């Protein structure tokens, strides 16, 4: 399969996250086939990244870039705002803390647990969250 790409730029609003999720779910079905669990994992992680951008970045817009081919689906979520490294923040979370947590803060932990690779870059005054999920092929 040749690499295919989809880029969406939208206003930072939860309703737009819903629409982006629907688009990503359709791509995931193509990419992961019957492996619905892996498809759901990357969709969930991407939604958490987009929600975080809406809630915390202060950015007016969010960009979702999706690229997929035979072995991998990549999702990059970028937004403006001050630098925030989610990979470092998520590294400090563990099972014990999740058990003690009563509300809030599940998003970063979910991303870390649901993707195969989680990277971060700050470039051109934008935070870029990079999520990778292997197709298993």
């Amino acid at each position, binding site marked *: 399969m040749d690499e295919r790409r989809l880029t969406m730029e*939208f206003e930072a609003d939860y309703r737009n*996250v819903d629409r982006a*999720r629907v688009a990503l779910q359709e791509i995931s079905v193509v990419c992961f086939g019957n492996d619905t669990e892996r498809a759901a994992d990357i969709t969930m992680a991407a939604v958490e990244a987009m929600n975080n951008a809406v809630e915390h970045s202060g950015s007016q817009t969010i960009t979702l870039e999706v690229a997929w081919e035979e072995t991998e689906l990549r999702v990059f979520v970028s937004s403006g705002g001050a630098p925030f490294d989610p990979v470092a923040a998520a590294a400090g979370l563990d099972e014990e803390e999740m058990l003690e947590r*009563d509300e809030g803060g*599940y998003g970063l932990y*979910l991303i870390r647990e649901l993707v195969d690779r989680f990277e971060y870059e700050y470039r051109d005054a934008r935070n870029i969250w990079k999520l990778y999920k292997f197709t298993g092929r």
Partner: protein
Amino acid sequence: MLESGGRSMDVRIEKADDVAVLIPVGNLVASEIDSFNAHIGKLLDTHSGDLLLDMSRISFMDSSGLDAVMSLNRFATAGGGVFVCAALPDNLLKVFRVTRADQKIRLAATGLEGLMMIKAQRGEQS
């Protein structure tokens, strides 16, 4: 550029003996949380007892949705009630397992099993 907008989510509320059964329909996500909480708030104005949250009609839930469920659990149990979350689709069950929420909230495979769990818990308490 996408436009914002959309309709609010539906929450069916039924009674089974003294248990309030909540059946949200749609996606329990950040964009729907205000609507969900508004439905729940109305119920909790008149009901202070056991709650069963039937998730069988929820297609997708993010961490905002999980927060809402955790809040509901806290509210119900703080008032001495029993809270059970039932009929979770596989993708939602995974969210509970990954975040360890399954160890903080009673889960049942079906709504009926959830009602039986509440009844059994009531029996133990009396």
